């Protein structure tokens, strides 16, 4: 079956791209072969005066290259050739004698945008689904089909680098302002507008684009000296953001720079060289694996396929209007557009919670991601009260009250008393086993855990925790609901700490032990940010809240014994009234909500003097291997269903470095034997808490890898 159909009318060829059997259009090898033939026809058929390229898919123009095909690339030269051929194909579009109009509705990403950039005119719909971007760096790659060349020429170096180096997509309105598209039309007349434009271009030629922008544009984008400043600023930003772990943005910057300063031929060469190197490099491999794992998770409902269908959630009830409850409410209103009722003990708390939840929407509105009417509509989804009125219609109730078993049981009983028998009850506990909460439930089959991470609107992970008794319908409902909230969902076992907090526990403990040994706070944190974490473990404790961390620590200690015994450090800080960021006092000082350096008085509280010349290698090893060992142990315990889920959980739950793939992937890369050896060394010096996980030993016996090589 053909991916392209061409209808010629009045000398205008309308080429419709509709890749058979796929939800979105992708530039696969087969598509490219077909497209080349089409280009020959457009070149040679003298009856064709102009062409329109449009998609036959509902909300997708071209989603980009076929990433599956990247993984088959084994050598740098093959990858380089792929890029080069893409560049050539796109060049042939640009040099066609007949003008081509790209009619863009839906996602226009990566290779799709590079193709559109080579067209002679671009019309986009004003629909929110229409997004244009070059997300290649997010996969550790760079735009390799001329995107690093044409985008800066079209919209200027600064705007182009902003898009290429972050990989972010722009909505069509912004694209119009940037000059990335020439016209914005409603979807209903896209085809008509494109045909009209094609006809005009055929008669009058391609219009000269007016130089855009004001003085800064002139100064920075259109002089070599100005651009030098732009490159330097971009490089600094990239270094700060990537910590030197991600090579792609710098290579993209290089390709843009060479193209603008030395001409397009040199630029294209730099582009395909870099693409070739990156595509077979370790970082891109890891990021592509993460991409596939995340995509697979989007289709994994956590139950045997077909064993249940999700319930429609028309009203969400939330008990507990604190920071978590409000965050869940706001995020649900924003993404799921679900009627949401917030309940807390008194109206003042409810009001504060509604305000916090509303902020999730207000922030979007202020950033113009929501129109006034959308904002008003979504805001009206949020309501609350000090009683359970409104809960009788709730299909899903999420409890986000204080971490206290008796309280949670009481809330569950209250909710069961007022809701319909089919309603699902989810606890947003971070540490309490769900079966303990459900122990006195009247309908334990409707009870499960939905563990969100704070702040809910930003953190991408959700752990769904069924008990032995939970009905698959409840599981799939929670999984689907979480996914509609924009979360990546992993289904984890009902064991203390679930997955994320379980593997974090020894890591955070070890950081506290290091402090107690006198290692300075900033040394601990800087070691781990250098290793690739977005924040260090001590800063993470401040973020999580010392009270919450303490509570979690004691739960883990009770469940797993002395291996996970939390050191005294936290208790001492808590006794001093420090809760972390939320009360502005923790290991760090805070000024107007911003971190303002280490609080040196902490050392006095824990009774140590900060040592100098701490051995960073040892610090890193202790922290990393504490985490790896626990991950192996928890996986062996069945805390998580697969290494894939475990790694994604670590990446999205607490920012485990993506370029390392995840803790279990890292064990594979290091070699299980080497991990065990290192742990044994650590055990000799620091004690039994480093005793290698049984899972690692059996892994070695079974061949030594979590993932197929």
């Amino acid at each position, binding site marked *: 079956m053909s991916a392209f159909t061409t209808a010629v009318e009045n000398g205008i060829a309308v080429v419709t791209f509709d890749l058979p059997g796929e939800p979105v259009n992708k530039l696969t090898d087969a598509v490219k072969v077909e497209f080349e033939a089409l280009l020959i026809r457009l070149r040679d058929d003298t009856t064709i005066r102009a062409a329109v390229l449009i998609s036959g898919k509902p909300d997708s123009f071209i989603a980009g290259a076929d990433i599956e095909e990247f993984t088959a690339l084994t050598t740098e030269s093959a990858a380089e050739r792929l890029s080069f051929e893409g560049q050539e194909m796109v060049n042939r579009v640009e040099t066609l004698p007949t003008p081509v109009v790209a009619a863009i509705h839906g996602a226009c990403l990566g290779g799709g945008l590079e193709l559109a950039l080579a067209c002679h005119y671009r019309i986009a719909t004003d629909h929110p689904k229409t997004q244009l971007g070059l997300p290649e760096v997010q996969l550790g790659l760079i735009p390799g089909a001329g995107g690093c060349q044409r985008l800066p020429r079209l919209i200027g170096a600064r705007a182009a680098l902003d898009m290429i180096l972050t990989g972010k997509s722009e909505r069509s309105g912004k694209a119009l302002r940037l000059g990335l598209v020439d016209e914005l039309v409603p979807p209903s007349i896209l085809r008509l507008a494109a045909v009209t434009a094609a006809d005009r271009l055929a008669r009058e030629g391609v219009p000269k684009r007016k130089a855009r922008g004001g003085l800064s544009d002139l100064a920075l984008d259109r002089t070599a000296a100005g651009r030098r400043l732009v490159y330097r600023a971009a490089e600094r930003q990239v270094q700060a953001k990537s910590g030197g772990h991600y090579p792609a943005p710098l290579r993209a910057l290089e390709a843009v720079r060479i193209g603008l300063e030395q001409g397009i031929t040199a630029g294209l060469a730099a582009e395909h060289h870099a693409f070739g190197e990156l595509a077979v490099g370790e970082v891109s491999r890891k990021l592509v694996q993460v991409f596939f794992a995340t995509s697979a998770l989007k289709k994994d409902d956590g139950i045997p396929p077909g064993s249940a269908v999700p319930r429609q959630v028309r009203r969400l009830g939330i008990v507990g209007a604190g920071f978590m409850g409000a965050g869940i409410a706001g995020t649900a209103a924003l993404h799921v*557009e679900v*009627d949401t*009722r917030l309940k807390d003990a008194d*109206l*003042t708390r*409810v*009001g*504060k919670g*509604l*305000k916090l939840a*509303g902020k999730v929407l207000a922030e979007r509105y202020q950033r113009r991601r929501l129109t006034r009417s959308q904002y008003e*509509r*979504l805001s*009206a*989804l949020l*309501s*609350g*009260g000090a009683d359970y*009125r*409104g809960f*009788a*219609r709730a299909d899903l109730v999420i409890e986000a009250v204080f971490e206290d078993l008796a309280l949670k049981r009481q809330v569950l009983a209250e909710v069961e008393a007022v809701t319909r028998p089919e309603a699902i009850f989810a606890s947003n506990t971070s540490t309490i086993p769900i079966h303990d909460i459900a122990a006195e439930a009247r309908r334990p089959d409707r009870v499960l855990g939905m563990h969100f991470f704070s702040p809910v609107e930003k953190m991408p992970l959700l752990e769904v925790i069924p008990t032995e008794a939970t009905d698959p319908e409840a599981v799939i409902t929670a999984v689907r609901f979480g996914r509609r909230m924009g979360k990546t969902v992993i289904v984890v076992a009902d064991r203390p700490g679930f997955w994320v907090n379980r593997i974090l526990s020894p890591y955070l403990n070890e950081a506290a032990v290091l402090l107690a040994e006198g290692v300075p706070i900033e040394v601990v944190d800087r070691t781990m940010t250098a290793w690739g974490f977005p924040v260090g473990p001590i800063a993470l404790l401040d973020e999580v809240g010392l009270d919450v961390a303490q509570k979690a620590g004691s739960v883990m200690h009770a469940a797993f014994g002395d291996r996970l015994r939390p050191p005294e450090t936290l208790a001492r800080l808590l006794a001093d009234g420090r809760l972390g960021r939320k009360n502005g006092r923790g290991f760090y000082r805070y000024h107007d909500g911003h971190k303002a350096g280490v609080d040196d008085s902490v050392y006095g509280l824990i009774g140590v003097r900060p040592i100098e010349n701490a051995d960073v290698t040892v610090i890193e090893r202790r922290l990393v291997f504490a985490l790896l060992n626990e991950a192996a142990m928890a996986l062996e315990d069945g805390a998580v269903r697969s290494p894939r889920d475990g790694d994604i959980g670590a990446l999205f739950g607490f920012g485990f470095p993506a370029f390392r793939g995840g803790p279990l992937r890292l064990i594979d890369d290091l070699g299980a034997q080497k991990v065990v050896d290192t742990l044994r060394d650590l055990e000799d010096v620091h004690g039994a808490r480093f005793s290698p996980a049984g899972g690692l030993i059996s892994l070695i016996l079974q061949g030594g890898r979590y993932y197929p090589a």
Partner: protein
Amino acid sequence: MHDSRPGRRVAIVAGLRTPFAKSGTVFREVSATGLARHAARELLVRTELDGREVDEVIFGQVVPSVRVPNVAREVSLLPQLLPSVPAYSLNRACASAAQAITNAADQIALGHADVVLAGGVESLSDIPVLHSRRFSQILVEAGKAKTMGRRLGTLARTRPKDLVPVTPAVAEPSTGETMGQSAEKMAKENGISRDAQDRLALQSHQRAAAATDDGRLTAEIAPWFGGPGMDEIVTADNGIRADSSLEALAQLRPVFDRRYGTVTAGNASPLTDGAAAVLLMAEDKAVALGYQPLAFLRSYAVAAVDPGWQLLMGPVYAVPRALERAAIAWSDLGLVEIHEAFASQVLSNVQAWGSAAWAERLGLAGPVGEVDWERTNVMGGSIAIGHPFGATGARLVTTLAHEMVRRDVQFGLISICAQGGMGSALVLERD
């Protein structure tokens, strides 16, 4: 005791309102739409009604905002309802919400709708302030001007007095008489003393304060999350003065006739912001959905008098008509709610209902009835609670229906006077 009126019986299932607040206080920053939507949504929540059941939304509003001329549509576009629910707003002055309720009842009786959300709203903190007629004409002309020179020339015709803003007046367009002047006139012509007016005002405040304390009034109020942090909770009306006294009321100066007048800010209803909503259903629908109706609408009537005469005497005509349509006598009434626009108006209406001379004028065999204050305005009235023009009718229906349940009363009456010389009366019944 069923009568033979046509159509289906209409159940009053529930009612709810925002707190009523003196204009320019807690709802200063809130739009009428915001108030109306709050009352409507909380009513849906409290009744646990599936929003998809609602067939129509009707709201009363007397002074609509220029930007939202049809506030009912904004209510019906609440995400809890289907966007396909039609909605309209109406204006029968102070009887607007009552009119919304009776229109809803008509639609239900006719079988055009099963479930209707009816109510009303007023925000006098959010009133349209207009330009003078002359300035508007200049602006329109300037807008049409083809050249900048001509445009500036047109605008240059503006005189300072053209720029004086025009605010909506509480005055009769036909006579130019303000509502207060009418109340003053009624006090004089009907011989209503200052003391009698102040005593009624005192009773209104004392009863409303008691009903707030014991929760009967607050039960009808959906708390409002006020202030920039949404943590300033408003659960009650802010015009009720539990500490009011005859002495304090007597101190107040008459507003509309400084020398001989008796109408003061103390014995009149204040300018108020608020919204109220009532859920009405066909009786069979209410049963099918498992609701126990508070009461049923038995009859209603609207009447009008010449506004140049005694403006607020419309109820004197409307009430006997409603009773006649209900086929009951005044003596059958267990509870009466009279809208208190002004104490002088309430006492004038009461005097007329009890008078043989008036009965003759109305063509009745005898007086309409003697008001028993033990069964009338038992939770206070608009003087204390406040009077958001468009919403009061829905408050009265809600209050009366709830109190009829509490007292196990079979028949209740609502009487509302309105601008333009109109009066509105509703009879509720319970089985």
